């Protein structure tokens, strides 16, 4: 063995050092692991807090994970988000990732994180856990769509998730279910008007114009206009991208839809001639239109102080220019019997006298008009056979038939893609085409909603415009639809939608159907929310009051627009409804025999008045006579309106009768309840009927006893 030269020694020494250094990299790298840094950082952070002991009580230096085998959850997020359950770290000044989770109805330890936030539970690096879609498919869900996660299990609407509820309402309201399969969104009996006889109602020119520019438009900024007037309605008819030839074809095809021979309602010509001499005819018709409260469902443009606004409800279409739209013969027949033309329409069948019918029709046909309605529409002439054939083909191809029925025409089933699992789609399953949008699910959904052609130039989906809150709401609703839960443990978590239905029978059913009470009122969870819930009306209101009100639902507040329409109800109809309500629509907690109004003494009444006015100051919300607030119903006529049993039960616990009423539950003693009941039953008003059953607006409907 020769002697090692110095040079060799040096080389050896260097390579040993290098070798050691390389060896050291790995423990060093391990030490420098991102999550370990956060763990150390947490310890140092805890030292700066007053409750250090508590904060580090369970501290362990390794990876922390929430493992929930039944739910497919392996979440290591708490490794870094270590303070997530420490109440004292809730403050905004606590730096992330240590801040406590804001209080929510679920315990983080029982649910893990990814069930709601998505992202990669098992990952231990910041970027992989939150963002990556390379090896993993689901990045973190941006917080502004977090309500989508509530909706994956809560099929029933939650009060805590207004954005999700709004999104679901939009999906149903915009008729998305016409073309797409959407879980939990039922197809109603009629999605859009049946067009079987549309040719008897409107002209070819009007159809052309409507197809080109539907009445309700949302502009690029999300502002809605109806017939050019600002409004808040959602357009149910979207805008299709149609060419001139297509417009001509479709209008030709639709204008020849006159399947059922149209029997117009003929009034006696001599009587009509006499009425026609009346110069006040149209203005009398207008008065009847107002008195019948058509505006509860239909809006009209009204100009006040130079400003034109739509006033009225949105259950039915806006009517400002309807006189220039429909054929007058059709109108009179429709008003008399709407279901004769559209079997599923929600328009009630009023009890018309011939004279009223004629006057109101005259008013609509002569005053609710716009001579310029069809300007810009070319003279289309008689539809040619080739145009009709083209229109028929387009009607099927464009998906019109998915929402509109034409008897004898069979639409394609499932016209658009099934969306029941859209919210759980992985990025690799989405077609981004040539678009430049970021490749993730949220961007895909929003791009598709804003411009369907952006991701697929051949898209048949019509164009919608959205304002940002609505776009986010509908995105949230779509993200919540993740298909059937993958594991049985998750399946058990699903909170189903409550099936609400109300199936009355007999004489009541006939009257109830004729007047479409459910368009505005709820019965046992079924129906609209424009007007008071009537599920327990029989317990609440006295029978005679109900009869009087139905026959003449006038109120003392003429400024209010949305009111119970004047149906011109016969005494028999009113009695049928009132009898059914008093017999069936009863609340179990309001026992009519529990309160004997005969036992009330004058002393009790006096005490009640004193409690009402001084101790509890009920006048802050309720009006009696001329004074008081109007958060709650006017009580001036409480003695003739409410049953003593209802008043008594209500005072004890309002929420037991109407769970979402805003009347606060008080701590009345039994004597106080009796005294207040005694006082309220003495309140009478000579002018009848009174204002209690009116509603000030949609939202007021849920307020309480009399609203």
């Amino acid at each position, binding site marked *: 063995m020769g002697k090692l030269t110095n040079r060799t020694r040096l080389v050896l020494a260097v390579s040993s050092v290098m070798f050691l250094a390389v060896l050291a*990299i790995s423990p060093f790298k391990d030490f420098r692991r991102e999550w370990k840094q956060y763990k150390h950082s947490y310890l140092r952070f805890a030292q700066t807090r007053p409750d250090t002991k508590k904060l580090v009580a369970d501290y362990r230096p390794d990876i922390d994970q929430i493992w929930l085998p039944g739910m497919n959850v392996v979440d290591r997020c708490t490794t870094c988000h270590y303070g997530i359950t420490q109440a004292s770290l809730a403050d905004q000044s606590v730096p992330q*990732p240590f801040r406590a989770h804001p209080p929510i109805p679920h315990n983080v330890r029982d649910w893990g994180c990814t069930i709601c936030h998505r992202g990669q539970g098992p990952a231990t690096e910041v970027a992989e856990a939150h963002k990556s879609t390379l090896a993993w498919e689901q990045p973190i869900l941006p917080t502004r769509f977090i309500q989508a996660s509530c909706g994956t299990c809560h099929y029933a609407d939650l009060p805590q998730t207004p954005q999700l509820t709004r999104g679901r309402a939009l999906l149903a309201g915009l008729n998305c279910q016409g073309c797409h399969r959407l879980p939990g969104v039922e197809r109603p009996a009629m999605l859009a008007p049946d067009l079987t006889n549309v040719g008897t109602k409107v002209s070819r020119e009007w159809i052309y114009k409507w197809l080109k520019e539907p009445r309700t438009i949302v502009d690029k900024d999300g502002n809605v206009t109806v017939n050019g007037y600002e409004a808040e309605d959602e357009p149910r008819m979207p805008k299709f991208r149609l060419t001139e030839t297509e417009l001509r074809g479709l209008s030709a095809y639709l204008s020849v839809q006159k399947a059922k021979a149209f029997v117009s309602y003929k009034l006696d010509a001599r009587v009509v001639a006499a009425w026609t001499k009346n110069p006040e005819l149209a203005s009398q018709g207008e008065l009847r239109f107002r008195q019948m409260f058509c505006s509860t469902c239909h809006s009209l443009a009204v100009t006040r102080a130079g400003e034109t606004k739509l006033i009225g409800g949105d259950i039915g279409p806006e009517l400002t220019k309807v006189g220039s739209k429909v054929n007058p013969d059709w109108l009179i027949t429709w008003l008399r019997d709407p279901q004769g033309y559209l079997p599923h329409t929600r328009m009630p069948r009023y009890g018309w006298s011939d004279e009223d019918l004629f006057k109101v029709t005259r008013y609509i046909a002569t005053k609710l008009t716009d001579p310029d309605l069809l300007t810009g529409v070319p003279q289309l002439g008689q539809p040619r056979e080739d145009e009709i054939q083209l229109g028929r083909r387009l009607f099927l191809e464009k998906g019109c038939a998915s929402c509109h029925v034409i008897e004898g025409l069979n639409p394609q089933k499932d016209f658009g893609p099934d969306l029941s699992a859209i919210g759980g789609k992985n990025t690799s399953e989405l077609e981004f085409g040539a678009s430049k949008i970021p490749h993730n699910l949220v961007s895909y959904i929003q791009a598709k909603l804003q411009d369907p052609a952006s991701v697929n130039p051949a898209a048949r989906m019509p164009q919608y415009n959205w304002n940002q809150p609505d776009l986010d709401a509908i995105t949230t609703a779509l993200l919540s639809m993740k298909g059937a839960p993958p594991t049985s443990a998750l399946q058990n978590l699903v909170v189903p939608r409550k099936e609400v239905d109300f199936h009355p029978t007999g004489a009541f059913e006939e009257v109830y159907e004729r007047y479409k009470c459910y368009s505005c009122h709820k019965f046992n969870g079924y129906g609209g929310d424009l007007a008071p819930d009537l599920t327990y009306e029989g317990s609440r209101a006295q029978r005679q009051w109900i009869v009087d009100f139905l026959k003449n639902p006038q109120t003392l507040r003429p400024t209010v627009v949305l009111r119970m329409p004047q149906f011109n109800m016969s005494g028999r109809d009113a009695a049928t409804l009132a009898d059914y309500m008093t017999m069936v629509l009863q609340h179990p907690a309001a026992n009519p025999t529990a309160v004997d109004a005969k036992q009330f003494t004058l002393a009790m009444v006096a005490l009640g008045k004193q409690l009402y006015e001084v101790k509890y100051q009920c006048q802050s919300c309720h009006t009696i006579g001329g004074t008081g607030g109007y958060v709650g119903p006017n009580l001036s006529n409480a003695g003739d309106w409410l049953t003593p049993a209802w008043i008594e039960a209500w005072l004890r616990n309002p929420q037991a009768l109407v769970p979402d009423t*805003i009347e*606060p539950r008080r701590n009345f003693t039994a004597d106080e309840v009796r005294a207040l009941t005694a006082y309220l039953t003495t309140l009478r008003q000579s002018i009848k009927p009174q204002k209690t059953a009116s509603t000030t607006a949609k939202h007021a409907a849920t307020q309480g006893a009399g609203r």
Partner: protein
Amino acid sequence: MKFHVWFGALLLMTLAGAAACRKNAESAKADPLLSAYDTEADWNDAQHVVPLSFQQAQGKRIFYQQCVWCHADSTPAGPSNRSNLTPVPPLLNDRATLNAESDEYMQNIVALGGTAMGKSAMMPPYGRMLSAEEIRSVVAFTRAIAQPPYQPPARAESQYSAK
């Protein structure tokens, strides 16, 4: 001499390598509106939108159901009941009045009503109707919409930031 250079270079390289391994976790400040559970437009300035946490958002919902009638000048149903009341209740974003009150006082007056707190009986008690959590959330919402926001009197202000 040469050895020192070699060794130094080696050490630097190792360190640099190790440092490069530690990816820079993005610490870009997220837009508070995008990460908010809900938002509320500032009552005095519609352009200014206030982000709300889950709890504050629940408070917002309860406020618009229960309190808006008396504590705001316009309501979902149109006119407000506020002017019918004596004393006229403070607007809920009235920081001059409400920021002076502690959370505890605020929770008490909502739960027990005006009478119990030596105030007017026109402020009803909500303690039997709203849960303690709901009352806390309404107060949290009050704090959120008071502009500029409420500062709790003695908050352990932490200057610490992670890493």
